[in-house]
């Protein structure tokens, strides 16, 4: 795992079981000037959360089994109240949107969308969100 060498560089976490998806996010975020840590399972994600300060996190709703990504998002929200936390969900529906709100996610993207497109949207949404002093 690489640590961001410069405090100005945003540190992102992407948690997804698919290596190809992780690589695409890492590349897209790198182009946006971010350092990205990748996790394919919950233990790796939890260690990363314990050892780093993330400003952005993108989590699959299904890391090891369907639905486990929701709870990981709630954990991230508790640890990093000002981070931008997004979920890659199987669908956009009332239940998934409701779950996203109630678990503290900032945004939901459908996992069927092209990864590069989602990564771009994440960067845009992150840049538009209120800063900590204004949020709470």
């Amino acid at each position, binding site marked *: 795992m690489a640590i961001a060498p410069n405090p100005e560089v945003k540190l992102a976490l992407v948690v997804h079981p698919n290596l190809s998806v992780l690589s695409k996010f890492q590349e897209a975020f790198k182009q946006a000037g971010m350092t990205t840590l990748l996790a394919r399972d919950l233990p790796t994600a939890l260690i990363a959360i314990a050892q780093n300060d993330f400003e952005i996190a993108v989590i699959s709703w299904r890391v090891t089994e369907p639905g486990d990504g929701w709870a990981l998002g709630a954990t991230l929200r508790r640890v990093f*109240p*000002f981070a931008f936390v997004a979920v890659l969900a199987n669908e956009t529906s*009332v239940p998934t*949107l409701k779950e996203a709100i109630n678990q503290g*996610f*900032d945004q939901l993207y459908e996992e069927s969308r092209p990864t590069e497109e989602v990564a771009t949207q994440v960067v845009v949404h992150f840049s538009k969100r209120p800063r*900590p002093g204004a949020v709470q």
Partner: protein
Amino acid sequence: MTTAHHQLLIVDDEPNVLLTLGMIFELDGYNVSKAGSCAEALKMLGNGTRYDAVITDLNMERQDIGLEVARAALQLTPRPVVVICTGYADLRNTQAALDMRVDYFATKPVDLDELKGAIRRLKERSTLARRIAG
């Protein structure tokens, strides 16, 4: 964290809902204010009272007008916990609630223990976040 003296605003055009939720949260130690419409709620949110939490219905004077209550509440400083409580959730209003960063979205019939627990947790979280932000 005690709920004593926490100011809660409940917004719903159904008098029975206002009465019931009001009684339940008052028993839980909240100081409860009630508004029966979006217009009344906006007036109350603008009068300088510091609310710790706002629970709003969506469909009142018109469909989804409760989003305006949520938006106004989210702009207050300090920002209260904002909860939408509706019997008419659809893709549009749920996506709008996520986009504006509403804290909790409950669908009627509401699980009251879950709602009370969520507000308590969210209040604790926002207090902690305010301390971190300085």
